[in-house]
């Protein structure tokens, strides 16, 4: 491989590092109406009366929109393939407000000051209901969060919405009851993962305008342009063909932008006024008015014989979807289906789940998407089991680990074709110095160092649902444009896909021009989520390039009046495969390309679509060394080792960056990040002052290595890496904390105070 598996810089790197204006708010026209949202102060209430007359007449104000003015079609804001599993439980503005921050009015005007002034003149009277704030009390709570008659699901997801049950379900294999009875050792604990914020650096922002054909154009910071088109059409009640969605450079997403957040507000202002409109969420709004990770309370019961062979696992998840059901039925599924398969050898397993509505901010998609929460629970339980068995926790894993060739019972019966997890564990164990450091080393009277470990898996695209189409065109010189619908959110997928194309077409990387995503021009792609871009869109690129090569050869054949079957293409020229010096049967690609656009030429392009019946899991083993101050409980990560099997890394630098970034987000989740609500349902951690993502002083060394399997279903053997990288830190750190001082923390985040108080309790 020439370009695949090389660490080339991102194609947009120099523009980004010199501060070029390539993001949504840099491109917005100066004459956009400024749009702001008046938000509910109550967690659960009904709007009885609203007076917007004064506000609407104030200087500079273009319109004030309330629930009375919006279309009545319910929809989901979740970016998922149609028919979406998420319930249609939203309106653009609803008379019932379901969380503190739920929008109540949309105000648009010429300047921000004028809009803010007008907002202060809007009066709203509410009938306030008792909010449901505790997910463990949500089921059958007297407050029914979604009483509306037009609440809708596309297919049965096990809902009983009158009980605040958004969805439920499960899976079973073997007889867990019998196997638990036969177990010598059982661990049965409950683990609690709180909601977290994706906290990407670019907040939500969108601008919209009507073009000269009266089509609505939405320019937005998103991961899901095509889903926006679909959802906006439904929500606004206009035909899909009248909507165009453009995605410029975006300042990351991590799943936050796999849901519509800001798009519909300027859109409805533009439709109402005919004018361009723009909304930019400030950081506070991004915290309180978007979607978070699902809070999950997961009970894990695991049984083994005294040799450490796993007999049964039962995992039950209670997930909190908040006020609306975006991504509710899907995230909860991963808490079991992307954790249990690691222990495929267990004789029986059972997974059950319930997802409840509460009057807190809606949960949605965040890197890991349920697997993260499930991994914390299951891996913590496994570490506790190892301790109970008196067994090294890595030995317990190795004894029960899934292996290539197995049919994964809890993973939809998929066959595992690539897995280097055992090698990941061995490599990581060596890198962290496990033998010398496990379980802990006392370094002074007051300080102790300890190690912990965890393993994880994820998936690569959603099988039989995710879809990526690609078009590659030969231009009138020897270079190509690669048209994709996949959305680079900074990860570098534009670069990865260009590398794949350059490899296939045997040309230099700079001969591939990747075009931006515009739903009018780009081929369809479900978008950047579910770790699908490299695996799925990458494969579509491979297919399209193969087709294009065939067309190039055939076009050369016509030109040379030779049978194409005798010709070959090496990226620079098409020539006689049997006689390479045959000058009569040779043409440079450059000359061919130029000739194809003159007269009776034939522009060459090839398209391909790809969907996959399999979702090959990437794997990771995470190892942490912490230092704990036993007098204060303060725990610092001094070293984190992550060893990843993502199949072939298409770009080792970018793969390394994904891993390092995911590890640090995982450390944040484990130790610092916390979304809590006050007694009235107001989010307390609504800024970077209160919600603490790791700064560069909050961690020590991060070391990454790869143990690559080869995945036959992926481009050049690649799987995925985007999500798997966030899952190991929380359980590994919890494990290290136990090893340091003997306590078990089963709720995140694990703060110094929690640690110290538990140590004292134990004493």
């Amino acid at each position: 491989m020439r370009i695949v598996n090389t660490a080339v810089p991102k194609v947009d790197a120099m523009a980004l590092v010199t501060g070029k204006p390539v993001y949504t708010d840099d491109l917005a026209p100066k004459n956009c109406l400024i749009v702001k949202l008046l938000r509910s102060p109550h967690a659960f209430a009904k709007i009885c009366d609203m007076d917007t007359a004064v506000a609407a007449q104030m200087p500079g104000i273009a319109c004030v929109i309330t629930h009375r003015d919006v279309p009545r079609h319910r929809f989901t804001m979740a970016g998922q393939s149609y028919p979406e599993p998420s319930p249609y439980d939203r309106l653009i503005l609803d008379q019932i407000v379901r969380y503190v921050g739920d929008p109540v009015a949309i105000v648009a005007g010429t300047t921000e000051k004028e809009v803010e002034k007008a907002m202060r003149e809007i009066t709203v009277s509410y009938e306030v209901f008792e909010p449901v704030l505790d997910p463990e009390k949500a089921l059958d709570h007297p407050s029914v969060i979604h009483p509306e008659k037009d609440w809708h699901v596309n297919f049965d997801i096990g809902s009983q919405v009158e009980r605040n049950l958004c969805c439920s379900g499960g899976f079973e294999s073997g007889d867990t009851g019998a196997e638990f009875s036969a177990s010598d050792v059982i661990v049965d604990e409950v683990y609690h993962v709180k909601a977290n914020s994706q906290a990407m650096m670019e907040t939500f922002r969108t601008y919209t305008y009507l073009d000269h054909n009266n089509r609505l154009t939405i320019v937005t910071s998103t991961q899901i342009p095509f889903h926006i088109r679909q959802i906006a059409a439904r929500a606004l009640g206009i035909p899909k063909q009248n909507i165009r969605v453009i995605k410029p450079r975006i300042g990351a997403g991590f799943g936050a932008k796999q849901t519509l957040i800001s798009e519909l507000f300027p859109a409805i202002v533009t439709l109402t006024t005919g004018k361009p409109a723009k909304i930019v969420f400030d950081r506070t709004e991004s915290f309180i008015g978007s979607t978070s990770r699902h809070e999950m309370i997961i009970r894990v019961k695991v049984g083994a014989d005294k040799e450490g062979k796993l007999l049964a696992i039962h995992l039950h998840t209670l997930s909190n979807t908040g006020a609306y059901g975006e991504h509710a039925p899907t995230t909860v599924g991963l808490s079991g289906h992307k954790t249990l398969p690691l222990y495929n050898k267990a004789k029986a397993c059972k997974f059950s789940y319930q997802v409840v509505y509460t009057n807190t901010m809606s949960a949605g998609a965040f890197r890991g998407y349920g697997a993260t929460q499930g991994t914390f629970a299951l891996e913590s339980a496994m570490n506790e089991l190892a301790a109970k068995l008196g067994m090294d926790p890595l030995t317990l894993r190795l004894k029960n680990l899934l292996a290539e060739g197995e049919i994964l019972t809890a993973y939809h019966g998929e066959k595992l074709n690539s897995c280097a997890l055992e090698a990941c564990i061995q490599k990581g164990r060596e890198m962290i110095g496990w033998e010398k450091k496990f379980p802990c080393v006392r370094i002074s009277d007051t300080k102790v160092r300890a190690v912990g470990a965890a393993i994880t898996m994820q998936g690569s695209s959603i099988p039989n649902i995710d879809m990526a189409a690609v078009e590659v065109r030969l231009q009138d010189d020897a270079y190509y444009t690669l048209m994709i619908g996949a959305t680079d959110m900074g990860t570098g997928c534009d670069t990865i896909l260009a590398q794949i194309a350059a490899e296939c077409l045997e040309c230099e990387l700079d001969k591939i021009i990747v075009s931006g995503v515009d739903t009018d021009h780009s081929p369809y792609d479900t978008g950047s989520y579910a770790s699908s871009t490299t695996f799925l869109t990458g494969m579509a690129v491979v297919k399209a390039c193969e087709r294009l090569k065939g067309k190039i050869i055939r076009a050369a054949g016509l030109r040379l009046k030779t049978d194409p079957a005798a010709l070959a293409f090496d990226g620079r020229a098409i020539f006689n495969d049997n006689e390479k010096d045959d000058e009569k049967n040779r043409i440079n690609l450059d000359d061919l390309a130029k000739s194809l656009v003159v007269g009776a030429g034939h522009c060459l392009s090839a398209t391909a679509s790809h969907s996959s019946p399999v979702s090959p899991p990437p794997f990771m083993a995470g190892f942490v060394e912490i230092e704990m101050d036993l007098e204060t409980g303060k725990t610092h990560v001094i070293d984190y080792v992550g060893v990843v099997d993502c199949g072939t890394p298409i770009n080792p630098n970018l793969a390394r960056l994904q891993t390092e970034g995911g590890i640090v987000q995982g450390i944040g989740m484990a130790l610092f990040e916390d979304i809590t609500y006050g007694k009235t349902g107001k989010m307390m951690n609504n800024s970077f002052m209160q919600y603490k993502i790791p700064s560069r002083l909050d961690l020590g060394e991060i070391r990454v290595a790869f143990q690559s399997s080869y995945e036959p279903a992926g481009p050049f053997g690649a799987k995925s890496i985007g999500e798997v990288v966030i899952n190991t830190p929380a359980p590994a750190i919890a494990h290290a904390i136990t090893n340091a001082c003997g306590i078990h923390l089963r709720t995140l985040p694990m703060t110094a105070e929690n640690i110290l108080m538990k140590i004292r309790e134990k004493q």
Partner: protein
Amino acid sequence: MFGLKEYRVAQSLDQADQLLHEHKNNVILGGLLWMRMGRKNYHTGIDLSQLGLDRILETEEAIEIGCMTRLRQIETSGILDACFGRVLADAVSHIVGVQFRNAATMGGSVFSRFSFSDVVTALLALETHVHLYRGGILPLETFLESSPQRDILVKLSLKKKAWKTSYQSHRMTATDFPVLAAAISCCEDRWRISLGARPSRAKLATKAAALLPKKPDAAQIAAACDQVVEEMSFGGNQRGTREYREILAKVLVKRGVEAVCR
């Protein structure tokens, strides 16, 4: 962000004082870092940057820190290190970031009497006086106990003595507000123990300090720490409970005293 109708650059302290009292919504503009998070509508903002108040000056008896001195200057000042050890530098070095500390002023940090203030906690462990334009010269302890008046904090003066100091704090993340902050000093055999972010405002634990001899042993340090919790009140907030702060208080004071003794 706040609103402002007028922006005036004061050409003298007298003019600044006049402007401040012209309108009840007039305000002295410091680093703006706290102000920008509010939504208040002020009338006139008064800029003191032309008055030479951004300096650290050494006199015979004291070090004078002008109110417009930035926290970053405190962090990098050789004069302060030489006179007071690292207590002031250590107190400010955790605060958000270098850009923030290039803006935040000593005047703003003290005048605001913020309960979470590392700066106030550290200054209280030294003999610090606050120089107010109208209110005169007050010991910092007195200023902190007094009710807020409209005035200009012109400078701080810190008595030059043979100080030995230590700053100790506990935070949830490296650049976050302190969960608890402690500044310990010893000078001429007299100790000062200052605790801030309790979560309430910094205060001296005078009885505990009085228990400490010049070179305390472990038992004496422990007794002083117990006394700290006896005489001071601690509370709970988002960052910690009362019980945890009481535990931390003993640990931080112990470590501070041990560091001073080394």
